[in-house]
């Protein structure tokens, strides 16, 4: 078996289906893997891959970025994943706050944040990401780390996209590592062809093949290509960790606004570690009116798969990875950044 055989089968199936097929890779790491392998140029003309809302940096709401930058500028030491450093908020990015003298640390794991906390007891960790990073935040909170949480649950966004119905989605390429945590079972609630897959070019090719196969046979199943990692029930221990510390709440997404039941809020029991409460006095003084001001940036529509980066009026014209206007240009898995680097 080789990649070329899979590609050949994809072309045969696509021809059989005939019509245009829109597949959404909801996970940003898939978007990047697709671009890195140059996959799009090898697919049949009627098979389209659209980028979904699975870049945690991209979907972080402007208010949350403005809040954490405000805390940093107010003298509170802040740590976050490197991905977030350069995302511009209304008061600049965390990286720019650092240039102005704020204590900002880019870290790779929450254990590193716990180390930094020994020297900077007031440290706040800006927690972001989906079910894959929420357990690490939960772990750290139980060890005493104070967190400003913006964690999100991923399935509600996938459901919301189907419900809004702005874009016809013929199939989902489901996230591999979120699925390692939540398992394959929860996807069964959605009636659309879905394949959970890994991040090697062959994984994605096989997933596309499996989706086309479902479409050709008029099925809408949840199939798991990533059997080497994803179990039906996911990782119960990681889920236990998440729900020991967090409870479901409404989530605030860039591009969507509020999606009910898509957020994770720190439980009453752990409220001492919730930066939103601990630094309420500082946050109450922040002027969030700017956060909601619309700009020319089309990140919102791009996240919902409605627009492609090249449709955005500021793409490459004022918005570049060096001077990003929106988060989709900052994150290396953001649709705009990927298009900027790998597009024609």
């Amino acid at each position, binding site marked *: 078996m080789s990649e070329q055989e899979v590609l050949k089968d994809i072309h045969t199936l696509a021809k059989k289906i005939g019509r245009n097929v829109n597949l959404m890779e909801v996970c940003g*790491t898939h978007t990047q893997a697709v671009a890195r392998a*140059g996959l799009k140029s090898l697919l049949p003309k009627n098979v389209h891959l659209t980028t979904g809302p699975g870049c945690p940096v991209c979907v972080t709401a402007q208010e949350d970025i403005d809040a954490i930058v405000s805390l940093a500028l107010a003298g509170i030491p802040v740590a976050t994943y490197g991905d977030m450093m350069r995302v511009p908020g209304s008061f600049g990015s965390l990286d720019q706050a650092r*240039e102005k003298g704020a204590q900002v640390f880019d870290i790779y794991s929450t254990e590193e944040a716990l180390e930094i906390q020994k020297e900077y007891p007031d440290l706040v960790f800006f927690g972001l*990401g989906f079910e894959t990073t929420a357990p690490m935040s939960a772990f750290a909170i139980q060890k005493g780390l104070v967190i400003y949480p913006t964690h999100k649950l991923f399935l509600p966004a996938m459901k919301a996209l189907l419900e809004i119905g702005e874009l016809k989605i013929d199939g989902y390429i489901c996230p591999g590592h979120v699925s390692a945590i939540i398992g394959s079972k929860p996807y069964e609630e959605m009636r659309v062809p879905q394949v959970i897959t890994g991040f090697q070019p062959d994984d994605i*090719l096989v997933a596309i093949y499996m989706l086309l196969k479902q479409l050709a046979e008029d099925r809408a199943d949840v199939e798991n290509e990533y059997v080497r990692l994803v179990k039906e029930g996911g990782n119960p221990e990681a889920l236990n960790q998440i729900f020991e510390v967090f409870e479901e709440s409404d989530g605030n997404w860039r591009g969507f606004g509020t999606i009910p039941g898509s957020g994770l809020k720190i439980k009453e029991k752990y409220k001492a570690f919730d930066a939103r409460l601990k630094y309420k006095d500082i946050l109450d003084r922040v002027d969030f009116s700017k956060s909601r001001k619309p700009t020319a940036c089309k990140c919102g529509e791009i996240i919902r798969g409605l627009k492609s980066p090249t449709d955005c009026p500021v793409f490459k014209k004022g918005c570049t990875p060096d001077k990003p206007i929106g988060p989709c240009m900052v994150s290396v898995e953001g649709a705009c950044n990927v298009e900027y680097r790998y597009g024609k």
Partner: protein
Amino acid sequence: MVNDESIELDHGGGGYKSWELLQDIRGALKSRGKWQNCEDDAAVYDLSSSVIPAKAGIHSKLVFTSDAFIVEPIFFPGGDIGKIAMCGTINDLSVMGAKPLGISLSIVMEEGFSKTDLMKIMRSINKVSEESGVPVVTGDTKVMQKGKIDKIEITTAGVGLADRVIENKGIKAGDVIISSGDLGEHAVTLLASRFNYKTKIISDSKPLNKEIEKVGEYLNACKDPTRGGLAANIVEMANKSRVKIVLDEKTLPYKKETVAVSELLGIDIFALASEGRFIASVSPKNADKVLEILKKFNNEAKVIGHAEAGSGVYLKTKLGALRPIEMPKGKLIPRIC
């Protein structure tokens, strides 16, 4: 808002922003005299035109370069700040086709810096001198108040002589691109130390003058992929040479450990720096000869791609698609997504 005019760390990252800053600086420094190649790794002064009578012909070009070095940690597996300060300048002269003659060494230290460490660095510098045959002949030291500088900064400058200058812009369509060994291992060593990884990989820093001397006559273009890694340097060479370069994913010059570190930290492998490797373009008829010689220095030397008519740098992926390789954008930040 942050003042647009302030210098950011990205300006020192070796990517696009560094290049932009250099353009501004070059723009402000208007006089070049009779110096040429001021945008390459070293500048060239043709002695035959003025100093030496035209007939001399041999070693008639003076090549001059300078570089500043800061590194964290100062001592790392396979080297230290002194070694890279020497190698950096020797290599910048060597990739231009010059035989390095001598080095100047300027050191700025923080008050309280360990004398033992300083002498350890000097011994390391001396070792490179002996190995490469390039002496340190002049220099300066300054000491700054504690906290005004982080431990130590070293600046070296060097002069060399060349018969034929190898320029960045010399790649011709049809050339093959050769790497003198596996790349990125200097960066991997520093990242491993920053993130507590244990690996056998050590910094690739070493002086390149002897190996380049052996193959220099066959090289159409040559550059050492230091800051900004293969990506920044090959893009620069392709742009200056006005050719398209296609690298082959199947023969990329990276060890499995280097791939692992880049994947673990989410850092672009093509942006990882080397301090003792070069990439060169040679015409296909000379490729085997060059490789045979280079393999005596480093068995990993190999062809990594080719040049053709057109523009840009592309990677031919294992699936057979072409995707662009871009100049890195800024400092390397690990990421989780």
